[in-house]
């Protein structure tokens, strides 16, 4: 039994090497996280931008630079032209003794207030109050943590989708009939494929996490979390692979499922904690929660294990429901 699983697993591995998929499987996610990593400092240090002209004077312009990025123009017309562009940028010019804040008209209320507050602050002769800064916690940048969560989530589910397209290819090339007449049973087929999803998903997730987060996360928890999460990715892969008759239908089903797979975690990032129960029925929410426990560490160890347990149990329940259907579609005993 284990020999059959191992043989089938090794057959997949050799197929991956033959098709250069292993190279892409490792390289592409790494490339993606490198792009994210390159992008993170730009977002973290992003600030408001001001377009100014000569009329405000060099001293004012350099003081303005303490609050945001400055783009200098030679006339108020050029400043207006820039303010009229796609992004939100505050124009400041001077008309006699008065500063002129130039806005497009579609900016958020906070942008208008900020412009006035900054001018007041620059012109204030004495500081109005003593202000002290205290850094508390571990000085995290949540953009980095959430990027890591979404990247790892994507990596794990891509492995499931890759498996789906392997199943579709096996169906299209009739290889599935050869598997069907072999001694391999359906659950062994599923287990061998889960092994593949779990190993590749975990390895690539760890590499991605090392690039994005360095050594600031527990890799033991990530290893466990990725293995548990891969159970759901495997179920998604089986669902797509089982339902689709060809690659185009595979993509069509993937599109529908992706809507749920990626929108639920994205929604959970922005929704208030008391309303998180709205996401509880979605199994992928618990994958997100596993990763949140690993990368942000807001929950307890109990919460991590609870999320792992719910992910595994919900994957098994879906698999049991799918089993009769999969037997018909994949045609393995």
């Amino acid at each position, binding site marked *: 039994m284990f020999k059959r699983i191992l043989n089938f697993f090794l057959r997949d591995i050799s197929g991956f090497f033959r098709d250069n998929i292993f190279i892409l499987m490792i390289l592409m996610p790494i490339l993606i996280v490198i792009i994210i990593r390159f992008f993170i400092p730009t*977002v973290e240090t992003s600030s408001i931008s001001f377009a100014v002209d000569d009329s405000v004077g060099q001293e004012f312009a350099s003081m303005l630079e303490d609050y945001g990025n400055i783009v200098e123009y030679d006339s108020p017309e050029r400043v207006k032209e820039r303010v009229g562009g796609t992004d939100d940028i505050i124009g400041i010019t001077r008309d006699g*003794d008065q500063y002129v804040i130039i806005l*497009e008209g579609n900016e958020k209320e906070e942008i*208008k207030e900020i412009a006035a507050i900054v001018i007041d602050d620059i012109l204030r002769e004495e500081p109005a109050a003593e202000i*002290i800064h205290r850094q508390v*916690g571990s000085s995290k940048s*949540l953009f980095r943590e959430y990027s890591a969560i979404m990247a790892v989530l994507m990596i794990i589910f*891509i492995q499931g989708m890759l498996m789906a397209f392997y199943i579709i290819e096996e169906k299209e*090339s009739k290889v599935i009939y050869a598997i069907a007449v072999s001694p391999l049973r359906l659950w062994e087929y599923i287990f061998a494929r889960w092994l593949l999803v779990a190993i590749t998903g975990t390895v690539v997730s760890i590499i991605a996490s090392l690039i994005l987060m360095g050594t600031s996360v527990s890799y033991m928890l990530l290893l466990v979390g990725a293995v548990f999460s891969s159970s759901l990715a495997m179920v998604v892969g089986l669902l797509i692979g089982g339902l689709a008759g060809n*690659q185009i239908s595979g993509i069509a089903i993937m599109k529908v499922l992706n809507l749920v797979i990626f929108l639920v975690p994205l929604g959970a990032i922005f929704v208030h904690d008391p309303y998180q129960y709205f996401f509880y029925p979605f199994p992928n929410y618990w994958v997100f929660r596993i990763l949140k426990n690993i990368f942000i560490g807001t929950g307890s160890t109990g919460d991590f294990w609870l999320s792992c347990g719910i992910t595994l149990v919900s994957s098994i329940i879906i698999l049991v429901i799918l089993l009769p259907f999969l037997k018909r579609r994949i045609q393995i005993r």
Partner: protein
Amino acid sequence: MKRFINLFKQDTRVIIRSGLHYAVIFVSVMFIILINFVIPESLEVKSNEFFYDGTQGKILEPFLLAGGVETDSIFSNYDDFIGALEENGDSIGIQLEGSAENARFTIFSQNTESIKNINLEEAVLESILENIRGTVGPPNYRVENLREEAPPIPFNKNLIPVFLTYEVVALGFLLIAVMIFQEKAEGSIHAYRVSSSGTAIYILSKVAIFTLIAVLYGVITTVSTAGFNIDYAVLLLLMILASIFMTLLGLLVSIFFKNISEFLFVTFGVLLIMQLPAISYINPTFAPGFIKWIPMYPVLFGLREALFSTGKQNYLFPYLITLIAGIVIIFAACYFAVRKRLMRSGL
């Protein structure tokens, strides 16, 4: 023309046989339900600011309450304040001590912040204190709006351009690739090679079918979520051009891969880059130069202007030029790549 129509009909049959239209209808209906009935018009974003008013006479609290700060974000007990900060890893805390004349603010930060943003926070706090003291002088500035102030776009409707850009317009990117791989696997590409139709017709037929699907998909979704009172001419123009661009890009990339499994990884990378302008869309003050060069940037903002006009003039022309130039370049690249790798080689 007849050859084009025949191939177009054939490609349409392949698409219908695959059941893609069911997926498109399902996603469209889901989005329409989400926009019209589930996602609210205004989103109550997580409050991540906590205040501790440690002043004699609690001078900060009434000012904050008048400004709309929720009562559960204002603490009168220091330990509770610190506890709330520790529980919410993404929050910042503001503490005010002393009196109005001799005030001392403490900002408790948990996240990495740039010095510019710290200066902005300080400016805001000093402005708050001046308001509490009642020492705000006459403004030494005036505000000039280039156009009439536009009404804020409801949160749910603001998602329509994002859906149109990343779901509707990007549809062809993935699907044309799958179609190519399927044709390779089924061997129909070999049959096409020996037919008298040329490379251009092969490309145009596929581009036409996916552009048509995108337009139907986009129009149905837009009518059902944004209604009729929008600039459909501009919307259609942008959707058609952007869809052609994305479909050609999908074709160009897919030619260099053997199967969908290889292509899938590249797809996620390309789509990730294409999605970067969405950050600028959510936060328009964030627009580094390289983001503006990504073709989805003008599409996203152009569609927003077509849907929720702010009276912006002359915005469309540069967007169209960018897209048309992109299409011309990518079509030429596609033509040569398809001829070399699909029509001639043994792939």
